[in-house]
């Protein structure tokens, strides 16, 4: 696909795939239309990160539903956790959790975060994510499909 100049892309229709409104509305009304996430890589192979990037990219565009990645957990409503919880990252994960203001959600993105994935039971792992932290949303897949990630985020923001 030829590189589109800024002006042409401004004037023509965006390439984002149109999606129907979500079936079930999000139960907690806290994040209606506005969800800031702090991405925490506790031991990922970077596969999930690529998918998250494309989830916020032009085609899937999770930002249109009010989701946004932020720099500091203080600004975040939720932790987007990827990868298995390695021994070194268990402490920082706890610290990040404490630093995030209530109410917060924890989203386990990718098989590693959901159930340890390929590396389940490896020596370097502290424990499964749900043993350490109460997980609210799970996005399976290794790596998870960007549409699945967008779908999960839409579930939270209800847009």
């Amino acid at each position, binding site marked *: 696909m030829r590189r589109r100049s800024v002006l042409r892309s401004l004037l023509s229709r*965006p390439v984002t795939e149109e999606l129907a409104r979500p079936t079930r509305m999000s139960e907690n009304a806290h994040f209606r239309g*506005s969800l800031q996430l702090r991405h925490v890589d506790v031991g990922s192979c970077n596969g999930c990160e690529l998918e998250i990037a494309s989830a916020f990219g*032009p085609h899937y565009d999770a930002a*249109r539903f009010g989701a*946004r990645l932020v*720099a*500091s957990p203080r*600004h975040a409503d939720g932790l987007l956790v990827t990868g298995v919880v390695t021994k070194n990252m268990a402490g920082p994960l706890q610290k990040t959790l404490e630093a995030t203001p209530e109410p917060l959600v924890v989203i386990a993105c990718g098989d590693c975060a959901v159930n340890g994935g390929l590396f389940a039971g490896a020596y370097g792992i502290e424990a499964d994510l749900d043993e350490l932290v109460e997980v609210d949303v799970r996005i399976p897949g290794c790596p998870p499909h960007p549409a699945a990630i967008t779908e999960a985020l839409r579930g939270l923001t209800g847009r």
Partner: protein
Amino acid sequence: MTATMTTTGLGASIVMSVVQLVMIVLGGPIVLGVMAKVRARAEGRIGAPVHQPLRDLRKLLTKEPIHAEHSSAVLAIAPFVLVGTAAVAIAVSPLVTTAPVLAHSADLFVVVFLLLMGSVALALAGLDAGTAFGGMGSSRAMTIGALAEPALLVAILALSVQAGTSNLPKIVAATLAHPSWAAGPERLLAFVAFLIVVLAETGRIPVDNPSTHLELTMVHEAMVLEYAGPELAIVTLGEAMRLGFLLSLAASLFLPWGIATSTNPLNLLIAVVALSAKVVVIAVGVALLEVRTAKLRLFRVPELLTGGFVLAVLSVVTGLVTR
């Protein structure tokens, strides 16, 4: 419309100032939304709705505020100083009308020093938590502020030298009375200098990247890393108001047509619409500039700001020469 300022009652000027305040308080975040929308569309995305920043603010208000354990009262007070000074600067300046409340105090230096007070409060808050990021943010913000403030002061000074007064409403009235000034060379130079300063003060792309996640590259964002919940909402609102204010000040100083000089509601409505249109146009322009350029290395920013300062001085000189 008569160029001379009709004697508006105190009540009327209060109403108009309140209108200005409400416009900027709501308009500021929307301007941020518009700029985000333009960026999204430039990337081929649909992007968040224009009023997304307002939604974020509403949601942030319901979040739990957190204070760093070693922080003192400065961290708690700074956001309110930021919003307070911005609000007064907005209420006092000639954005929608040339007769806002406290018009005789609506002085160029007052506005500049009010903004300075806001940035000093934010910088102190950055230092309060005692983290490396806060210190880095404050240090860089004060450095850039120290270089941007002279350019801002001298840029508006060029207009006041031409108008013979430093009172902003009078400058705007004088510009309305002499349409030939608007296209003059010193106005152009001052406008460019002013825009450079606006980019620096509000931390937009060439100077600072608001949507960066890497603390090392942050300038403004690093200072507010510690804020959560309502305080973060206030700080973000303050920043949005400052951006809205500076853009509308640019609009009313350099393109003053449509500003209400009398108090009848029709003028007011026209003024509101005209101002919104002008601000949106400038905001889109700035957003396009952001998409086109990359963030400058931190030590190239002084060159940009010194350039702005020199342009401002040049505009004063041309003003004096062609007097």
